[in-house]
């Protein structure tokens, strides 16, 4: 993209095309011959990684849209149907949902790199501003995408974020109405968000083209921050940068796939596995982790309008960075003071992210205000002043000099690791609220935990028995069908067994030729029966609290693991909060509440239930369900078995996921290794 190319294809067909549309020349000059500074480090591979992630999101997104239904009544179940029924649907969905997080991890690293090495300075101001625009578009896209599964967090996130606009004087309410297409967040909102969520990635792709164009005009910045002067300072993009980018990308994919295959729900919120309910707000609303710093800024300002203004300014201030920091030296490598302030700033952002996930009370509010002040101070006070008073160290004469005088910096990579861990630390979103007033459920050992975990078929069959004979009296399981009992990686019933179980129930069908509804015996395509005809009936029969559907229970509940435990959880692949909680709950009933606890009428005391007063009575007792395989018939065993069964119901593709994950990880390690050695071989003659 840097002017007419001298590239001349030899093949006559290509020649013919090239004379009419110089596309090969364009590609050649932009991605082959394009001179790239020879001292770029791995932080520069994140541009390529981001392009890759945009591609992943668009491809998986287009596919998910083929199976998704944008309707308030159907969206939640259609997402679950993708995960449960579509071939590799679970993979595509987890790639897309975790892909969004990876996209933001990569973009934050990319931005911080720009910040550190002064990539926004003359002549790259427009390049930088285009980047800020891409970031804003990404935030809008990510937000609208999060609304689409139509879970509790989707719904309430949409409500809270759209209400931000109501802070605008005079027009606020009208703008919000326009966003909603109704009197509240509802079906019209979901439909327009779906449409825009599909559109915006292509807008992003368009701005990315401009971003890359501007990059190729100004040339890449580099860690030394001095412009290339002679051909000794640069190497051609291909093969040098290409192979380095490829290796960086392979490592990033390994990181990405760790989440996709082993901890796919780690970055998500359990509440989003509860279908949207306009009548009940979850006790603690948090946005996705990538918005948390800005959410913290919003909350730390006690005035509505000022809070919203502060939040948006926190992003927009980035666009003015080229003029706020007027230092002639680009790279902070040579600006000792600015460098320290930069790392403090990184800490401030992580801190804000941490606070964004905490409830807005007490010391958190004060800390939030201090960090918000620090955030703005960095851009509006520290950088402008530093750039005037700081005496930078001497920069190298040329990039070639920089390469020769370079010492391998381990510090940078160590900091990178800390940064990534810190980003994980922002994710208190996935820590649930059971512990707000309860005690922490003990961790059980589960056969399905860990990278090679598998369900214990006998346990699933026993759990199904407990569900059928006890839980099913009050709880539905609308997402599970009799056919699922025969699926690989499940309880492993034969088709005949599942057919016999299905035939035990009566299903309403019709109308027949005479126009009448009729009852017929169940088939394996039927879902498990609901004990109540509708939610109101369920509520009326259960003292006002409808027993929740159990299909996703094992993913819709969790509890706080606390810092730093939840960071280790990412490494140990801990994904068993739900079953732990279910087991604890079923064994946590106490006949007499502790001294001083006032138990409301019609409730039971439960040690692990948030607030302890539970509408559900203690329904399990020893020897209540008969086990044929000699397993002890104790409440504890029942609770374990049914918790395992519910885990399978919530995550039926767990075994397939872990099995494929292992193969993919091995493959990626091999590929990354090969790329590493290829990269070394390619670069050997550049040094």
């Amino acid at each position: 993209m840097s002017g007419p190319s001298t590239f001349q294809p030899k093949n006559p067909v290509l020649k013919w095309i090239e004379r009419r549309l110089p596309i090969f020349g364009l590609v050649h000059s932009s991605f082959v011959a394009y001179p790239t500074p020879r001292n770029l480090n791995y932080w520069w591979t994140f541009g390529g990684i981001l392009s890759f992630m945009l591609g992943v999101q668009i491809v998986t997104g287009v596919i998910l849209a083929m199976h998704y239904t944008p309707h308030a009544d159907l969206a939640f179940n259609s997402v679950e149907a993708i995960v449960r029924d579509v071939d590799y649907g679970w993979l595509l969905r987890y790639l897309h949902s975790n892909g969004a997080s990876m996209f933001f991890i990569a973009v934050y690293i990319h931005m911080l790199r720009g910040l550190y090495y002064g990539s926004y300075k003359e002549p790259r101001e427009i390049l930088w501003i285009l980047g800020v625009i891409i970031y804003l578009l990404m935030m809008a896209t990510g937000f609208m995408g999060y609304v689409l599964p139509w879970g509790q967090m989707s719904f309430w996130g949409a409500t809270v974020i759209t209400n931000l606009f109501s802070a605008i004087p005079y027009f606020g309410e009208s703008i919000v109405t326009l966003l909603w297409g109704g009197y509240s967040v509802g079906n019209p909102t979901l439909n327009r968000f779906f449409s825009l969520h599909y559109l915006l990635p292509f807008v992003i792709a368009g701005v990315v083209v401009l971003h890359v164009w501007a990059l190729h005009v100004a040339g890449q910045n580099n860690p030394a921050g001095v412009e290339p002067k002679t051909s000794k300072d640069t190497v051609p993009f291909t093969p040098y940068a290409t192979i380095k980018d490829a290796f960086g990308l392979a490592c990033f994919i390994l990181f990405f796939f760790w989440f996709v295959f082993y901890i796919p729900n780690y970055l998500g919120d359990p509440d989003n596995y509860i279908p949207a309910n306009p009548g009940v707000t979850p006790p603690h609303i948090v946005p996705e982790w990538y918005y948390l710093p800005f959410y913290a800024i919003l909350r730390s300002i006690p005035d509505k309008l000022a809070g919203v203004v502060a939040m948006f300014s926190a992003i927009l201030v980035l666009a003015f960075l080229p003029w706020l920091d007027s230092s002639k030296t680009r790279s902070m490598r040579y600006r000792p003071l600015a460098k320290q302030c930069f790392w403090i700033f990184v800490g401030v952002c992580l801190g804000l992210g941490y606070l964004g996930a905490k409830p807005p009370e007490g010391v958190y509010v004060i800390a939030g205000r201090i960090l918000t002040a620090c955030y703005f101070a960095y851009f509006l006070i520290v950088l402008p002043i530093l750039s005037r008073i700081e005496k930078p160290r001497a920069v190298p004469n040329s990039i070639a000099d920089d390469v020769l005088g370079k010492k391998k910096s381990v510090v940078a990579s160590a900091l990178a690791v800390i940064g990534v861990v810190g980003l994980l630390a922002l994710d208190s979103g996935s820590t649930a609220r059971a512990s707000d007033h309860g005690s922490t459920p003990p961790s059980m050992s589960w056969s399905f935990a860990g990278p090679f975990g598998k369900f214990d078929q006998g346990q699933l069959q026993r759990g199904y028995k407990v569900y059928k004979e006890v839980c099913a009296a009050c709880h539905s399981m609308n997402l599970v069908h009799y056919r699922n009992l025969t699926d690989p990686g499940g309880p492993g019933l034969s088709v005949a067994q599942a057919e016999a179980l299905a035939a035990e129930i009566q299903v309403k069908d019709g109308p027949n030729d005479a126009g009448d509804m009729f009852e017929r015996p169940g088939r394996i395509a039927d879902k498990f029966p609901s004990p109540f005809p509708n939610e109101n009936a369920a509520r009326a029969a259960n003292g006002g609290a409808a027993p929740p559907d159990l299909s996703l229970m094992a993913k819709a509940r969790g509890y706080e693991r606390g810092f730093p435990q939840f960071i280790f959880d990412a490494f140990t692949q801990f994904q068993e909060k739900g079953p732990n909680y279910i087991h604890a709950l079923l064994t946590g009933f106490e006949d007499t509440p502790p001294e001083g606890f006032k138990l409301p009428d019609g409730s039971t005391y439960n040690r692990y239930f948030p607030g302890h007063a539970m509408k559900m009575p203690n329904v399990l007792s020893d020897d209540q369900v008969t086990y044929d395989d000699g397993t002890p018939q104790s409440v504890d065993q029942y609770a374990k078995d049914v918790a395992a069964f519910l885990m399978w119901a919530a995550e039926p593709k767990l075994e397939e996921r872990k099995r494929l994950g292992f193969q993919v990880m091995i493959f990626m390690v091999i590929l990354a290794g090969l790329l590493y050695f290829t990269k070394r071989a390619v670069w050997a003659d550049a040094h």
Partner: protein
Amino acid sequence: MTTSSSAGQSRRDFLFVATGAVAAVGAAAAAWPLVAQLNPDASTIAAGAPIEVDLSPIAEGQDIKVFWRGKPIFISHRTKKQIEEARNVNVASLPDPQPDSARVKEGHDQWLVVIGICTHLGCVPIAHEGAYDGFFCPCHGSVYDTSGRIRQGPAPSNLPVPPYAFISDSKIKIG
């Protein structure tokens, strides 16, 4: 000197080819789920289970249309005359030669069960129309006889017979 550098050269070449090949395998493997997801999903497959149809309400000379896997299935209760017509043809002269006996179940000659989708381009033919007292496709004029065999027009083959079986004299199971 030259030998060692050429050995190094070929080792490098091998490395490049191996890396490229592994990357290509990875890209191809990644394409697999993207295509496989286009298959009918598990709920669609489960909904395509066999269906039972009660034949007793269908009088002689009448026919009904039922749906199985989203396809219309024609079930005709053929008259004596229609059966005769289907039998009295020179099978060898047909575009898609098939005797009537191969298209109905033995002992149930009066019942013709075919998938009502024209083998030309998929329109649904109209029963009891056309020159052969069978089916006529309005789209491009294909004519089928009382056995659902193609007799005239652009369709290349006979109306297919779905898998089905009689579970009693008046009940069939399709699928």
